């Protein structure tokens, strides 16, 4: 369900990192590296009030405590552990390839 410009918009949101068990930024970088070459995806740090197709949430532990309520998004994809970036990229790719009408 891309925007009018055809780009699939992804907002990146980090938890506060009080006891992060892995490098969250390294995992989100894996996602951008996997998806950016296609030219289909736009990534930015998530800001309240801006609509995103996917909110990519990188949390330092499974508690995943950040509140997502200030954000506007279609689906949230969460990374909670090291190595989660690859699976997150695949999940986003699937979401992007799913026809918009399948979303409620």
């Amino acid at each position: 369900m891309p925007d009018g410009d055809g780009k699939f918009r992804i907002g990146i949101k980090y938890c506060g990192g009080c006891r992060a068990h892995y490098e969250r930024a390294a995992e989100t970088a894996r996602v951008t590296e996997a998806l950016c070459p296609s030219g289909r995806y736009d990534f930015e740090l998530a800001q309240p009030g801006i609509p995103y197709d996917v909110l990519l949430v990188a949390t330092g532990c499974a508690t995943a405590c950040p509140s997502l309520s200030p954000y506007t998004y279609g689906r949230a994809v969460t990374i909670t552990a090291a190595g989660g970036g690859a699976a997150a990229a695949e999940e986003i790719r699937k979401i992007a390839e799913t026809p918009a009408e399948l979303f409620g």
Partner: protein
Amino acid sequence: MPLMTGEQYIESLRKLDVKVYMFGKEEKNWIDHPIIRPSINCVAMTYDLAHDPEYEDLMTATSNLTGHRVNRFTHLHQSTDDLIRKVKMQRLLGRKTASCFQRCVGMDAFNAVYSTTYECDQKHGTHYHENFKNYMIYVQDNDLTIDGAMTDPKGDRGKGQGAQADPDLFVHIVERRPDGIVVRGAKAHQTGSINSHEHLVMPTQAVGEADKQYAVSFAVPSDAPGLFMVYGRQSCDTRKLEPGADVDLGNKQFGGQEALVVFDNVFVPNERIFLCEEWDFAGMLVERFAGYHRQSYGGCKVGVGDVIIGAAALAAEYNGADKASHIKDKLIEMTHLNETLFSCGIACSCEGCPTAAGNYQIDLLLANVCKQNVTRFPYEIVRLAEDIAGGLMVTMPSERDFKSDLKVPTASELTLGDWCNKFFKGAEGVTTENRMRILRFLENICLGTSAVGYRTESMHGAGSPQAQRIMIARQGDFETKKKLAKTIAGIKE
């Protein structure tokens, strides 16, 4: 400027005309002094992380007063979630600095004064809460660091405020004027006081009616006329003055700070007065500040503990002892102790409740249990760290010896550095310098400058152990527990 950067914070300190004394003389350029600067770097970290997307979720909050995004260190807690996030933020900063980052005392004072002034106004018809709300907006909008100043020198502990031979041993009002009050006295052990833009003063203990001039709370800038500070020296502090010192410092970048803050007839304008002889609210203010601050230790010390556990694990690796089962067990024990402290900090936050003013306070019993554990567990954690590190932590030569090119006149014709590196080599693949670095880090935290923050501050900061035991006795609800026992045991009286 709702959120300053670390650099902006440091520059803002330069604009103040703060009077700092150290080693018997006034230190004009205290901001760049090698002994003081690491403590300033710590506070700067509280500013920088608020701008970092990876940490802003904890480091910032939305002000209930203005709706602006503010640094959480200036926030009035609006929910139990805010209380939890406060503890998590403190753990984060402990992990980033391995030091006391000093800004918690202000945050804890804000929340205590906010609710106490509200209740004081309700009873006495005073206007302190409005004064304080205006002050908080000023603090939040300018992203200030504030010294929450509670501890008076106290003189003879067997006597109260008014019975001291020297009345100045507790901060008190010496003159009331139409435009404000004049105060006199001192606050001791003031964490981060020199690095603070202002001081928010509170009474140090409950006050009786006869001593009501000691029931005073107010705020003044750090460069108010009549205010000066004397830097508190720390174990091994002059190592920071050694030319090129690096490895031997253990933690070159960060550190804590305490000072004596003297008020020699300092004027306080009416709009900055938050308690003025309403003696029946002094105890409430003390109890609430202490409660918040005892919660704080369940975050900050845990973050520092994380770094100590990591350092101990590295020391074991560098010594080639990391596979030994007793080493693994000691690391597990350190983790158990550290996470127990975190559990207490989180628990007293989860069980928090709203005050009449609307901000949230912690569960007092659980916060005091938290701090009581903090008076003990960090000592065991550093004991285990010393055990794992080995005696070399305190016996190895200086970094200048390790780096020395001086030829030692023996048959081998090696340099002093060669000899030191040869005999202090540890596990294969580990440089001697890295081994030195981790051992010096542990030395610093166990018995150097950082031991001030991790050990003795854990014992006495936010109140000595007996202060918590008094609160635990008050909050322990023994009567209810006796009834429970009677019911189960079938006792009918």
